């Protein structure tokens, strides 16, 4: 029985998983906060507690993400693109395109049958093309992030945004609220706008189905459905989309050690 840990320190959220052989055994998600080192330690502590394991029980740890370098107890750093691909390949081996909607970026990755990355593209310069857009709008609507998706599904008339910018869009949303436009219509419009950006990004890489979606943004069911509509494809959605990259890191740790 061998245990491997994967830690993904993102700009907004930090994620960790422990796998036992090749099965997911535990996972944990926290806000990254200002101190990535502390975030990594907190996740490790929580994961070990969940499984009642000691630190020594973990055979190896790999880290990834914006703050991966701050995971002091990791023996290797792995690219997040590779981790996302590996993680998704484990959950949906048939997937050939993976969309990762994260807090500050969106990535589209093409993978082959072996789960190897063949191509990818990233949008990380503009908040309107990332999960941040949803966060800003959830704030405008005064609702929790987790309620954004379900609320948007109630709309039959999504609002159209005239701008592609999150800052200008925020002003537009505020105006819509003051005009009495129902919140669900605004939320649906926001999801539609972001889905449009995702769709444009996917077009930069030849989409090959089956296509899967992950990242914190995929917790927003309204966004997933809107993306399916925009791209006219069915999207494979893992049960825990936010931890796919951390899962890939853990798998990498295991793979590196299987040769020893």
């Amino acid at each position, binding site marked *: 029985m061998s245990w491997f840990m994967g830690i993904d320190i993102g700009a907004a959220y930090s994620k960790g998983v422990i796998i036992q052989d090749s099965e997911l055994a535990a996972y944990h998600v926290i806000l990254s906060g*200002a101190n990535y080192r502390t975030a990594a330690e907190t996740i490790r502590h929580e994961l070990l507690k969940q499984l009642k394991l000691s630190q020594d029980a973990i055979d190896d740890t790999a880290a990834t993400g914006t703050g991966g370098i701050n995971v002091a107890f990791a023996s290797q750093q792995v690219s997040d693109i590779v981790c996302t691909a590996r993680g998704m390949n484990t959950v949906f081996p048939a997937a050939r395109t993976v969309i990762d909607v994260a807090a*500050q970026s969106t990535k589209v990755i093409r993978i082959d049958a072996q789960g190897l990355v063949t191509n990818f593209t990233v949008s990380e*310069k*503009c*908040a309107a093309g990332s999960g*941040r857009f949803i966060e*800003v709008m959830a704030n405008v609507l005064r609702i929790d992030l987790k309620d954004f998706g379900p609320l948007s599904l109630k709309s039959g008339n999504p609002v*159209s*945004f*005239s*701008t*592609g*910018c*999150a*800052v*200008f869009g925020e*002003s*537009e949303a*505020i*105006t819509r609220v*003051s*005009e009495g436009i129902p919140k669900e219509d605004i939320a649906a419009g926001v999801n539609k706008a972001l889905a449009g950006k995702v769709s444009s990004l996917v077009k930069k890489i030849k989409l090959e189905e089956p296509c899967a979606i992950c990242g914190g943004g995929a917790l927003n069911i309204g966004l997933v459905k809107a993306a399916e509509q925009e791209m006219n494809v069915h999207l494979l959605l893992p049960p825990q989309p936010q931890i796919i990259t951390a899962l890939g890191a853990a798998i990498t740790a295991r793979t590196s050690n299987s040769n020893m």
Partner: protein
Amino acid sequence: MYFAGVDIGSTMTKVVLMDADGTILSTIKGPTGPEHRQLANEVMRMALEQAKVPLKEVAYIVATGYGRLNVPFADRQITELSCHARGVYSLFPNVRIAIDIGGQDAKCMKINNGKLVDFVMNDKCAAGTGRFLEVIAATLGIKLEDLGALSSKSTKRISISNVCTIFAQQEIVARLSEGEKAEDIIAGMHEALASRVATLARRFKVEPDVVLTGGVAKNSGMVNAMRENLGCEILVPPDPLITGAMGAAILAQETYMKATAEGETIQTKPRRLEKAKFFTQ
């Protein structure tokens, strides 16, 4: 006989009232804002009161700017680019490049002998507009009008790697928590915005006279940053906000005079101040 120009910007509404000699009798500026969408008539009323001119003696009124289509008392609508170019030319007859940085957009105009010959604009990304400074100032808890003075105290410029206003905002919060000073951050922000606007301007050959207008031109730190980036003198009018409305008033007079000279009937709107109906998106 009087002429008026009304410039309804996304952030500010400006009115200039002029007499037949081209003397400016009054100028009024007020925030457009979502709650003040119907401000044009109020601003016009204030301008007339200040100049002690009755509305019926205003021979011609031109509206310009973002909200120009919805000013019921305007006789004609002219695009803000034409109005800005005309206004800047009246103040600086040797202008070649006119840069206007407003609340929600940035425009660069190429002017030859007073005529607008080309332009380029950004109204898509907040990071290249006055909005960028607004958001950053709010994050730092500083008033917009204090940015210039504060930035002059800076001893080092803090570079922010993110272009996007929202991501830059996060980075700034991090820098502040690391102990960096507000004035150094502001200096960095001025440089960043100046660089983005200068990139627009460089689509044309940047040669003197280069004039800067718009609310952002009131920020001395921004003017210096633009000077540094473009490597040339930047001229700023005494009131950088009113060049659009000024140009509109001048064009109002020219339209009227030309029609009179050619014996044409001049179509005007009823001289009563109704509330503007601003279009919603």
